Protein backbone atom coordinates (compact mmCIF):
# COMPACT_ATOMS: atom_id res chain seq x y z
CA UNK A 1 0.00 0.00 0.00
CA UNK A 2 1.20 3.54 -0.70
CA UNK A 3 1.52 6.15 2.06
CA UNK A 4 -1.43 6.77 4.34
CA UNK A 5 -4.07 9.37 3.53
CA UNK A 6 -4.44 12.44 5.71
CA UNK A 7 -7.99 11.22 6.40
CA UNK A 8 -7.46 7.79 7.96
CA UNK A 9 -11.04 6.60 7.50
CA UNK A 10 -10.41 6.85 3.75
CA UNK A 11 -7.63 4.28 4.15
CA UNK A 12 -10.01 2.06 6.15
CA UNK A 13 -12.51 2.16 3.29
CA UNK A 14 -9.89 1.26 0.68
CA UNK A 15 -8.54 -1.51 2.91
CA UNK A 16 -12.04 -2.89 3.28
CA UNK A 17 -12.32 -3.30 -0.50
CA UNK A 18 -8.97 -5.09 -0.71
CA UNK A 19 -9.77 -7.38 2.21
CA UNK A 20 -13.21 -8.27 0.88
CA UNK A 21 -11.73 -8.99 -2.56
CA UNK A 22 -9.11 -11.34 -1.18
CA UNK A 23 -11.85 -13.16 0.75
CA UNK A 24 -13.82 -13.48 -2.48
CA UNK A 25 -10.67 -14.70 -4.22
CA UNK A 26 -10.19 -17.42 -1.61
CA UNK A 27 -13.80 -18.57 -1.92
CA UNK A 28 -13.63 -18.60 -5.74
CA UNK A 29 -10.44 -20.67 -5.69
CA UNK A 30 -11.96 -23.17 -3.27
CA UNK A 31 -15.18 -23.47 -5.26
CA UNK A 32 -13.30 -24.24 -8.47
CA UNK A 33 -10.99 -26.76 -6.77
CA UNK A 34 -13.92 -28.46 -4.99
CA UNK A 35 -16.11 -28.61 -8.08
CA UNK A 36 -13.34 -30.33 -10.05
CA UNK A 37 -12.61 -32.68 -7.13
CA UNK A 38 -16.32 -33.50 -6.99
CA UNK A 39 -16.22 -34.25 -10.71
CA UNK A 40 -13.16 -36.47 -10.46
CA UNK A 41 -14.47 -38.39 -7.44
CA UNK A 42 -18.13 -38.34 -8.49
CA UNK A 43 -18.86 -36.72 -5.12
CA UNK A 44 -22.39 -35.30 -5.18
CA UNK A 45 -22.24 -34.07 -1.57
CA UNK A 46 -19.17 -31.95 -2.27
CA UNK A 47 -20.84 -30.65 -5.45
CA UNK A 48 -23.87 -29.65 -3.40
CA UNK A 49 -21.64 -27.70 -1.02
CA UNK A 50 -20.04 -25.82 -3.92
CA UNK A 51 -23.50 -24.85 -5.18
CA UNK A 52 -24.49 -23.43 -1.82
CA UNK A 53 -21.25 -21.45 -1.51
CA UNK A 54 -21.95 -19.38 -4.61
CA UNK A 55 -24.19 -17.12 -2.53
CA UNK A 56 -21.11 -15.89 -0.64
CA UNK A 57 -19.57 -14.56 -3.84
CA UNK A 58 -22.81 -12.94 -4.99
CA UNK A 59 -23.03 -11.13 -1.68
CA UNK A 60 -19.36 -10.18 -1.80
CA UNK A 61 -19.74 -8.62 -5.23
CA UNK A 62 -22.80 -6.65 -4.17
CA UNK A 63 -21.06 -5.42 -1.03
CA UNK A 64 -18.01 -4.28 -3.00
CA UNK A 65 -20.22 -2.40 -5.49
CA UNK A 66 -22.05 -0.62 -2.70
CA UNK A 67 -18.91 0.36 -0.82
CA UNK A 68 -17.06 1.42 -3.98
CA UNK A 69 -19.92 3.71 -5.02
CA UNK A 70 -20.01 5.16 -1.52
CA UNK A 71 -16.26 5.82 -1.48
CA UNK A 72 -16.43 7.52 -4.88
CA UNK A 73 -19.30 9.72 -3.71
CA UNK A 74 -17.69 10.59 -0.40
CA UNK A 75 -14.00 10.98 -1.27
CA UNK A 76 -13.97 11.91 -4.95
CA UNK A 77 -10.90 9.72 -5.39
CA UNK A 78 -8.09 10.65 -7.76
CA UNK A 79 -5.34 8.88 -9.70
CA UNK A 80 -4.17 5.58 -8.12
CA UNK A 81 -7.03 5.59 -5.58
CA UNK A 82 -9.59 5.95 -8.34
CA UNK A 83 -7.97 3.18 -10.38
CA UNK A 84 -7.91 0.97 -7.31
CA UNK A 85 -11.64 1.42 -6.69
CA UNK A 86 -12.64 0.92 -10.32
CA UNK A 87 -10.31 -2.10 -10.39
CA UNK A 88 -12.02 -3.54 -7.29
CA UNK A 89 -15.40 -3.33 -8.99
CA UNK A 90 -14.12 -5.14 -12.07
CA UNK A 91 -12.23 -7.82 -10.16
CA UNK A 92 -15.30 -8.45 -7.98
CA UNK A 93 -17.40 -9.17 -11.09
CA UNK A 94 -14.72 -11.47 -12.50
CA UNK A 95 -14.55 -13.42 -9.24
CA UNK A 96 -18.32 -13.62 -9.06
CA UNK A 97 -18.34 -15.09 -12.58
CA UNK A 98 -15.63 -17.58 -11.60
CA UNK A 99 -17.94 -18.68 -8.77
CA UNK A 100 -20.84 -19.08 -11.20
CA UNK A 101 -18.72 -21.26 -13.48
CA UNK A 102 -17.61 -23.40 -10.52
CA UNK A 103 -21.23 -23.74 -9.46
CA UNK A 104 -22.18 -24.78 -12.99
CA UNK A 105 -19.53 -27.53 -12.94
CA UNK A 106 -20.94 -28.72 -9.60
CA UNK A 107 -24.48 -28.88 -11.04
CA UNK A 108 -23.20 -31.04 -13.90
CA UNK A 109 -21.48 -33.33 -11.39
CA UNK A 110 -24.85 -33.97 -9.78
CA UNK A 111 -26.31 -34.71 -13.21
CA UNK A 112 -23.62 -37.18 -14.32
CA UNK A 113 -22.06 -38.61 -11.15
CA UNK A 114 -23.88 -41.92 -11.51
CA UNK A 115 -22.75 -42.41 -15.11
CA UNK A 116 -19.51 -44.06 -16.15
CA UNK A 117 -17.05 -41.47 -17.32
CA UNK A 118 -14.00 -41.92 -19.50
CA UNK A 119 -11.17 -41.72 -16.92
CA UNK A 120 -8.66 -40.33 -19.36
CA UNK A 121 -10.85 -37.37 -20.13
CA UNK A 122 -11.52 -36.67 -16.48
CA UNK A 123 -7.74 -36.65 -15.95
CA UNK A 124 -7.44 -34.17 -18.83
CA UNK A 125 -10.04 -31.95 -17.19
CA UNK A 126 -8.22 -32.20 -13.89
CA UNK A 127 -5.03 -31.01 -15.54
CA UNK A 128 -6.86 -28.15 -17.23
CA UNK A 129 -8.33 -27.16 -13.88
CA UNK A 130 -4.91 -27.23 -12.22
CA UNK A 131 -3.61 -24.73 -14.77
CA UNK A 132 -6.65 -22.48 -14.40
CA UNK A 133 -6.37 -22.62 -10.61
CA UNK A 134 -2.69 -21.71 -10.74
CA UNK A 135 -3.59 -18.72 -12.91
CA UNK A 136 -6.31 -17.70 -10.47
CA UNK A 137 -4.07 -18.09 -7.44
CA UNK A 138 -1.21 -16.15 -9.02
CA UNK A 139 -3.42 -13.36 -10.26
CA UNK A 140 -4.72 -12.90 -6.73
CA UNK A 141 -1.08 -12.69 -5.58
CA UNK A 142 -0.41 -10.18 -8.35
CA UNK A 143 -3.33 -8.12 -7.05
CA UNK A 144 -2.15 -8.35 -3.44
CA UNK A 145 1.34 -7.15 -4.43
CA UNK A 146 0.20 -4.86 -7.28
CA UNK A 147 2.80 -6.51 -9.49
CA UNK A 148 2.52 -5.50 -13.17
CA UNK A 149 5.23 -7.99 -14.21
CA UNK A 150 3.43 -10.94 -12.60
CA UNK A 151 0.18 -9.76 -14.21
CA UNK A 152 1.87 -9.69 -17.62
CA UNK A 153 3.28 -13.21 -17.28
CA UNK A 154 -0.10 -14.60 -16.18
CA UNK A 155 -1.74 -13.12 -19.26
CA UNK A 156 0.89 -14.73 -21.49
CA UNK A 157 0.18 -18.16 -20.02
CA UNK A 158 -3.53 -18.23 -20.87
CA UNK A 159 -2.51 -19.66 -24.24
CA UNK A 160 -1.58 -22.96 -22.57
CA UNK A 161 -5.08 -23.37 -21.15
CA UNK A 162 -6.59 -22.66 -24.57
CA UNK A 163 -4.37 -25.30 -26.19
CA UNK A 164 -5.34 -28.00 -23.69
CA UNK A 165 -8.99 -27.06 -23.99
CA UNK A 166 -8.74 -27.42 -27.77
CA UNK A 167 -7.26 -30.91 -27.47
CA UNK A 168 -9.88 -31.96 -24.88
CA UNK A 169 -12.59 -30.71 -27.20
CA UNK A 170 -11.19 -32.89 -29.97
CA UNK A 171 -10.99 -35.98 -27.75
CA UNK A 172 -14.53 -35.52 -26.47
CA UNK A 173 -15.81 -35.33 -30.03
CA UNK A 174 -14.02 -38.59 -30.81
CA UNK A 175 -15.58 -40.37 -27.81
CA UNK A 176 -19.01 -39.22 -28.82
CA UNK A 177 -18.42 -40.45 -32.37
CA UNK A 178 -17.30 -43.85 -31.08
CA UNK A 179 -20.37 -44.57 -28.99
CA UNK A 180 -23.54 -42.48 -28.80
CA UNK A 181 -24.05 -43.67 -25.21
CA UNK A 182 -21.12 -41.41 -24.27
CA UNK A 183 -22.87 -38.33 -25.55
CA UNK A 184 -24.65 -37.29 -22.33
CA UNK A 185 -21.58 -37.54 -20.12
CA UNK A 186 -19.28 -36.10 -22.75
CA UNK A 187 -21.52 -33.11 -23.40
CA UNK A 188 -21.49 -32.31 -19.69
CA UNK A 189 -17.73 -32.78 -19.59
CA UNK A 190 -17.42 -30.49 -22.59
CA UNK A 191 -19.28 -27.77 -20.75
CA UNK A 192 -17.12 -28.36 -17.68
CA UNK A 193 -14.02 -27.95 -19.85
CA UNK A 194 -15.42 -24.76 -21.37
CA UNK A 195 -16.20 -23.45 -17.88
CA UNK A 196 -12.64 -24.08 -16.78
CA UNK A 197 -11.32 -22.39 -19.90
CA UNK A 198 -13.55 -19.39 -19.09
CA UNK A 199 -12.16 -19.31 -15.56
CA UNK A 200 -8.73 -18.91 -17.16
CA UNK A 201 -10.12 -16.00 -19.19
CA UNK A 202 -11.40 -14.32 -16.03
CA UNK A 203 -7.95 -14.73 -14.47
CA UNK A 204 -6.60 -12.98 -17.57
CA UNK A 205 -9.18 -10.18 -17.15
CA UNK A 206 -8.06 -9.75 -13.57
CA UNK A 207 -4.41 -9.69 -14.68
CA UNK A 208 -5.22 -6.86 -17.09
CA UNK A 209 -7.07 -4.96 -14.36
CA UNK A 210 -4.16 -5.41 -11.93
CA UNK A 211 -1.77 -4.07 -14.56
CA UNK A 212 -3.97 -1.01 -15.07
CA UNK A 213 -4.41 -0.39 -11.34
CA UNK A 214 -0.67 -0.60 -10.78
CA UNK A 215 0.57 1.42 -13.75
CA UNK A 216 -2.29 3.57 -15.03
CA UNK A 217 -1.67 2.14 -18.50
CA UNK A 218 -3.46 -0.60 -20.42
CA UNK A 219 -1.39 -3.73 -20.90
CA UNK A 220 0.10 -3.63 -24.43
CA UNK A 221 -0.64 -6.06 -27.27
CA UNK A 222 -3.42 -8.54 -28.01
CA UNK A 223 -4.24 -11.44 -25.75
CA UNK A 224 -2.42 -14.59 -26.75
CA UNK A 225 -5.09 -17.07 -27.88
CA UNK A 226 -4.95 -20.74 -28.79
CA UNK A 227 -8.61 -21.74 -28.62
CA UNK A 228 -9.41 -23.24 -32.03
CA UNK A 229 -12.67 -24.94 -31.03
CA UNK A 230 -14.83 -22.24 -32.59
CA UNK A 231 -13.99 -23.53 -36.08
CA UNK A 232 -13.69 -27.24 -35.29
CA UNK A 233 -16.01 -29.81 -36.89
CA UNK A 234 -16.45 -33.54 -36.31
CA UNK A 235 -15.42 -35.81 -39.16
CA UNK A 236 -18.40 -37.38 -40.94
CA UNK A 237 -19.25 -40.88 -39.57
CA UNK A 238 -17.27 -43.60 -41.32
CA UNK A 239 -14.77 -41.21 -42.93
CA UNK A 240 -12.19 -41.41 -40.16
Amino acid at each position, binding site marked *: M*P*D*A*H*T*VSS*YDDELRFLVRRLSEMGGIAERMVADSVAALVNADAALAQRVISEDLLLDNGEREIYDKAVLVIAK*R*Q*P*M*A*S*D*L*REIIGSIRIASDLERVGDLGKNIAKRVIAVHTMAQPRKLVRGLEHLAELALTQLKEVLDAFATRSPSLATSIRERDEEIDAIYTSLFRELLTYMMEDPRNITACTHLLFCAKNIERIGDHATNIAETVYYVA*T*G*EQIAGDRPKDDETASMIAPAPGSA
Partner: protein
Amino acid sequence: MLTDTTIEKKLTAMANDPKIKMRGNKVNVFYGEKQALFDVDLDVPGNAVMALIGPSGCGKSTFLRCLNRMNDTIDICKVTGDITLDGEDIYDPKIDVVELRARVGMVFQKPNPFPKSIYENIAYGPRIHGLTKTKAELDEVVESSLRKAAIWEEVKDRLQEPGTGLSGGQQQRLCIARAIAVSPEVILMDEPCSALDPIATAKVEELIDELRLNFTIVIVTHSMQQAARVSQRTAMFHLGNLVEEGPTDKMFTNPDTKLTQDYITGRFG
Protein backbone atom coordinates in the same frame (compact mmCIF):
# COMPACT_ATOMS: atom_id res chain seq x y z
CA MET B 1 -24.54 33.43 -30.43
CA LEU B 2 -22.22 30.59 -31.41
CA THR B 3 -23.79 27.20 -32.05
CA ASP B 4 -22.44 24.12 -30.36
CA THR B 5 -20.84 22.77 -33.52
CA THR B 6 -19.01 25.99 -34.33
CA ILE B 7 -17.75 26.17 -30.76
CA GLU B 8 -16.60 22.57 -31.02
CA LYS B 9 -14.84 23.20 -34.33
CA LYS B 10 -13.08 26.22 -32.94
CA LEU B 11 -12.00 24.36 -29.80
CA THR B 12 -10.69 21.43 -31.82
CA ALA B 13 -8.76 23.78 -34.08
CA MET B 14 -7.28 25.45 -31.00
CA ALA B 15 -6.34 22.18 -29.38
CA ASN B 16 -4.53 21.12 -32.53
CA ASP B 17 -2.60 24.36 -32.64
CA PRO B 18 -1.69 25.32 -29.08
CA LYS B 19 -0.21 28.80 -29.12
CA ILE B 20 1.88 29.87 -26.16
CA LYS B 21 0.25 33.02 -24.79
CA MET B 22 2.47 33.65 -21.78
CA ARG B 23 5.81 32.14 -20.97
CA GLY B 24 7.72 32.08 -17.69
CA ASN B 25 11.43 31.41 -17.95
CA LYS B 26 13.60 30.87 -14.85
CA VAL B 27 11.23 32.89 -12.69
CA ASN B 28 12.51 33.50 -9.16
CA VAL B 29 10.57 35.52 -6.61
CA PHE B 30 11.85 36.84 -3.30
CA TYR B 31 9.88 38.38 -0.47
CA GLY B 32 12.78 40.18 1.24
CA GLU B 33 15.22 37.41 2.21
CA LYS B 34 12.77 34.63 1.66
CA GLN B 35 12.68 33.00 -1.77
CA ALA B 36 9.15 32.04 -2.78
CA LEU B 37 9.72 30.70 -6.31
CA PHE B 38 12.71 28.79 -7.68
CA ASP B 39 13.54 28.83 -11.41
CA VAL B 40 10.00 28.24 -12.59
CA ASP B 41 9.67 27.54 -16.33
CA LEU B 42 6.01 27.44 -17.30
CA ASP B 43 4.21 28.03 -20.59
CA VAL B 44 0.60 29.18 -20.60
CA PRO B 45 -1.16 28.05 -23.79
CA GLY B 46 -3.60 30.45 -25.46
CA ASN B 47 -7.38 29.89 -25.44
CA ALA B 48 -7.09 27.28 -22.77
CA VAL B 49 -7.56 27.06 -19.03
CA MET B 50 -4.47 26.32 -17.01
CA ALA B 51 -4.92 25.32 -13.38
CA LEU B 52 -2.21 25.91 -10.78
CA ILE B 53 -2.46 23.53 -7.83
CA GLY B 54 -0.42 22.75 -4.75
CA PRO B 55 -0.56 23.04 -0.98
CA SER B 56 -0.74 26.44 0.75
CA GLY B 57 2.49 28.37 0.47
CA CYS B 58 3.70 26.44 -2.58
CA GLY B 59 4.03 29.56 -4.71
CA LYS B 60 1.09 29.11 -7.08
CA SER B 61 -0.55 32.44 -6.19
CA THR B 62 2.87 34.11 -6.26
CA PHE B 63 3.39 32.86 -9.79
CA LEU B 64 -0.10 33.96 -10.79
CA ARG B 65 0.53 37.45 -9.44
CA CYS B 66 3.76 37.69 -11.46
CA LEU B 67 1.76 37.34 -14.66
CA ASN B 68 0.27 40.84 -14.40
CA ARG B 69 2.90 42.30 -12.05
CA MET B 70 0.57 42.42 -9.06
CA ASN B 71 3.67 41.66 -7.00
CA ASP B 72 4.94 45.17 -7.86
CA THR B 73 2.49 46.42 -5.25
CA ILE B 74 4.47 44.61 -2.54
CA ASP B 75 7.56 46.68 -1.64
CA ILE B 76 9.85 43.86 -0.53
CA CYS B 77 9.00 41.64 -3.48
CA LYS B 78 11.67 41.07 -6.14
CA VAL B 79 11.11 39.12 -9.35
CA THR B 80 13.93 37.79 -11.57
CA GLY B 81 13.78 35.79 -14.80
CA ASP B 82 11.62 36.47 -17.83
CA ILE B 83 7.88 36.52 -18.23
CA THR B 84 6.56 37.23 -21.68
CA LEU B 85 3.12 37.99 -23.10
CA ASP B 86 3.00 37.17 -26.83
CA GLY B 87 6.80 37.13 -26.76
CA GLU B 88 7.06 40.58 -25.16
CA ASP B 89 8.85 40.91 -21.80
CA ILE B 90 6.27 42.23 -19.32
CA TYR B 91 8.98 43.30 -16.85
CA ASP B 92 10.58 45.55 -19.48
CA PRO B 93 10.80 49.08 -17.97
CA LYS B 94 9.13 50.46 -21.10
CA ILE B 95 5.96 48.47 -20.36
CA ASP B 96 3.03 50.48 -19.01
CA VAL B 97 1.82 48.43 -16.05
CA VAL B 98 -1.70 49.85 -16.21
CA GLU B 99 -1.96 48.80 -19.84
CA LEU B 100 -0.50 45.38 -18.98
CA ARG B 101 -3.17 44.84 -16.35
CA ALA B 102 -5.83 45.75 -18.88
CA ARG B 103 -4.46 42.98 -21.11
CA VAL B 104 -4.01 40.57 -18.20
CA GLY B 105 -7.03 40.96 -15.94
CA MET B 106 -7.59 39.45 -12.54
CA VAL B 107 -10.43 38.01 -10.48
CA PHE B 108 -9.86 37.53 -6.76
CA GLN B 109 -10.87 35.03 -4.13
CA LYS B 110 -13.47 37.25 -2.51
CA PRO B 111 -15.79 39.12 -4.82
CA ASN B 112 -14.82 42.78 -4.55
CA PRO B 113 -17.29 44.92 -6.49
CA PHE B 114 -16.78 48.69 -6.33
CA PRO B 115 -19.25 50.39 -3.98
CA LYS B 116 -21.04 51.72 -7.03
CA SER B 117 -23.93 50.68 -9.25
CA ILE B 118 -23.80 47.46 -11.22
CA TYR B 119 -23.54 49.55 -14.38
CA GLU B 120 -20.65 51.63 -13.05
CA ASN B 121 -18.77 48.53 -11.91
CA ILE B 122 -18.51 47.46 -15.54
CA ALA B 123 -18.31 50.91 -17.17
CA TYR B 124 -15.43 52.13 -15.01
CA GLY B 125 -12.62 50.23 -16.78
CA PRO B 126 -13.62 50.91 -20.39
CA ARG B 127 -14.13 54.58 -19.50
CA ILE B 128 -10.71 55.18 -17.89
CA HIS B 129 -8.97 53.21 -20.62
CA GLY B 130 -10.82 55.27 -23.23
CA LEU B 131 -12.20 52.21 -24.96
CA THR B 132 -15.56 53.78 -25.80
CA LYS B 133 -16.48 57.12 -27.30
CA THR B 134 -20.23 57.41 -26.78
CA LYS B 135 -22.74 56.47 -24.11
CA ALA B 136 -24.31 54.03 -26.58
CA GLU B 137 -20.99 52.29 -27.07
CA LEU B 138 -20.43 52.09 -23.35
CA ASP B 139 -23.94 50.68 -22.85
CA GLU B 140 -23.10 48.03 -25.38
CA VAL B 141 -19.83 47.07 -23.64
CA VAL B 142 -21.66 46.84 -20.31
CA GLU B 143 -24.35 44.61 -21.75
CA SER B 144 -21.98 42.32 -23.67
CA SER B 145 -19.65 41.96 -20.67
CA LEU B 146 -22.54 41.07 -18.39
CA ARG B 147 -23.82 38.63 -21.00
CA LYS B 148 -20.43 36.96 -21.39
CA ALA B 149 -20.27 36.61 -17.63
CA ALA B 150 -23.69 34.94 -17.68
CA ILE B 151 -25.28 37.43 -15.31
CA TRP B 152 -27.10 39.81 -17.71
CA GLU B 153 -30.49 38.18 -17.32
CA GLU B 154 -30.27 38.48 -13.54
CA VAL B 155 -29.27 42.17 -13.42
CA LYS B 156 -30.58 43.83 -16.59
CA ASP B 157 -33.53 45.42 -14.77
CA ARG B 158 -31.47 46.71 -11.85
CA LEU B 159 -28.32 48.13 -13.44
CA GLN B 160 -28.45 51.24 -11.25
CA GLU B 161 -28.61 49.30 -7.99
CA PRO B 162 -25.38 48.89 -6.00
CA GLY B 163 -23.16 45.95 -7.02
CA THR B 164 -22.65 45.13 -3.37
CA GLY B 165 -26.35 44.28 -3.06
CA LEU B 166 -25.96 41.16 -5.19
CA SER B 167 -25.47 37.66 -3.80
CA GLY B 168 -21.92 36.34 -3.45
CA GLY B 169 -22.09 34.25 -6.61
CA GLN B 170 -23.59 37.14 -8.57
CA GLN B 171 -20.92 39.50 -7.21
CA GLN B 172 -18.19 37.14 -8.41
CA ARG B 173 -19.71 36.95 -11.88
CA LEU B 174 -20.00 40.76 -11.79
CA CYS B 175 -16.27 40.92 -11.05
CA ILE B 176 -15.60 38.57 -13.95
CA ALA B 177 -17.76 40.83 -16.16
CA ARG B 178 -15.73 43.79 -14.94
CA ALA B 179 -12.50 41.99 -15.86
CA ILE B 180 -13.88 41.15 -19.31
CA ALA B 181 -15.09 44.70 -19.98
CA VAL B 182 -11.63 46.03 -20.82
CA SER B 183 -11.18 43.24 -23.41
CA PRO B 184 -8.26 41.49 -21.76
CA GLU B 185 -6.36 38.69 -23.45
CA VAL B 186 -5.61 36.76 -20.29
CA ILE B 187 -7.72 36.44 -17.14
CA LEU B 188 -6.04 35.39 -13.89
CA MET B 189 -8.30 33.87 -11.27
CA ASP B 190 -7.14 33.38 -7.71
CA GLU B 191 -9.49 30.83 -6.13
CA PRO B 192 -12.54 32.47 -7.72
CA CYS B 193 -15.02 30.02 -6.19
CA SER B 194 -13.72 29.53 -2.68
CA ALA B 195 -16.28 31.95 -1.23
CA LEU B 196 -19.18 30.63 -3.29
CA ASP B 197 -21.87 28.02 -2.71
CA PRO B 198 -21.96 24.91 -4.97
CA ILE B 199 -24.55 26.31 -7.40
CA ALA B 200 -22.72 29.62 -7.81
CA THR B 201 -19.50 27.61 -8.20
CA ALA B 202 -21.08 25.54 -10.95
CA LYS B 203 -22.17 28.73 -12.73
CA VAL B 204 -18.68 30.21 -12.55
CA GLU B 205 -17.15 26.92 -13.77
CA GLU B 206 -19.58 26.84 -16.68
CA LEU B 207 -18.59 30.43 -17.42
CA ILE B 208 -14.87 29.64 -17.33
CA ASP B 209 -15.39 26.97 -19.96
CA GLU B 210 -17.19 29.45 -22.24
CA LEU B 211 -14.63 32.19 -21.68
CA ARG B 212 -11.91 29.92 -23.01
CA LEU B 213 -13.16 30.67 -26.55
CA ASN B 214 -12.08 34.28 -26.30
CA PHE B 215 -9.59 34.42 -23.46
CA THR B 216 -6.64 32.62 -21.95
CA ILE B 217 -7.32 31.70 -18.34
CA VAL B 218 -5.00 30.84 -15.50
CA ILE B 219 -6.75 29.70 -12.34
CA VAL B 220 -5.39 28.97 -8.88
CA THR B 221 -7.61 26.55 -7.02
CA HIS B 222 -7.49 24.45 -3.91
CA SER B 223 -10.19 22.17 -5.22
CA MET B 224 -8.60 19.32 -7.12
CA GLN B 225 -11.97 18.38 -8.56
CA GLN B 226 -12.42 21.91 -9.83
CA ALA B 227 -8.98 21.88 -11.48
CA ALA B 228 -9.86 18.54 -13.06
CA ARG B 229 -13.20 19.88 -14.30
CA VAL B 230 -12.30 23.27 -15.74
CA SER B 231 -8.73 23.08 -17.01
CA GLN B 232 -6.98 21.58 -20.00
CA ARG B 233 -3.53 21.78 -18.45
CA THR B 234 -2.48 21.61 -14.82
CA ALA B 235 0.71 22.72 -13.09
CA MET B 236 1.59 21.40 -9.65
CA PHE B 237 3.73 23.55 -7.31
CA HIS B 238 5.45 22.56 -4.09
CA LEU B 239 7.74 24.65 -1.85
CA GLY B 240 8.29 27.21 -4.60
CA ASN B 241 9.15 24.67 -7.28
CA LEU B 242 7.16 23.60 -10.31
CA VAL B 243 6.84 19.85 -9.72
CA GLU B 244 4.97 18.76 -12.80
CA GLU B 245 2.97 20.26 -15.65
CA GLY B 246 0.88 18.40 -18.19
CA PRO B 247 -2.52 17.66 -19.69
CA THR B 248 -5.15 17.77 -16.94
CA ASP B 249 -6.63 14.39 -17.88
CA LYS B 250 -3.31 12.71 -17.29
CA MET B 251 -2.43 14.68 -14.14
CA PHE B 252 -5.53 13.46 -12.34
CA THR B 253 -5.52 9.85 -13.49
CA ASN B 254 -1.84 8.97 -13.78
CA PRO B 255 0.58 11.73 -12.75
CA ASP B 256 4.30 11.32 -13.39
CA THR B 257 5.59 12.27 -9.94
CA LYS B 258 4.89 10.74 -6.55
CA LEU B 259 4.57 14.22 -5.07
CA THR B 260 1.66 15.08 -7.37
CA GLN B 261 0.15 11.66 -6.80
CA ASP B 262 0.32 12.07 -3.02
CA TYR B 263 -1.10 15.59 -3.15
CA ILE B 264 -4.08 14.91 -5.42
CA THR B 265 -5.01 11.70 -3.61
CA GLY B 266 -4.99 13.50 -0.25
CA ARG B 267 -1.85 12.02 1.28
CA PHE B 268 -0.17 15.32 2.13
CA GLY B 269 -0.76 19.05 1.95
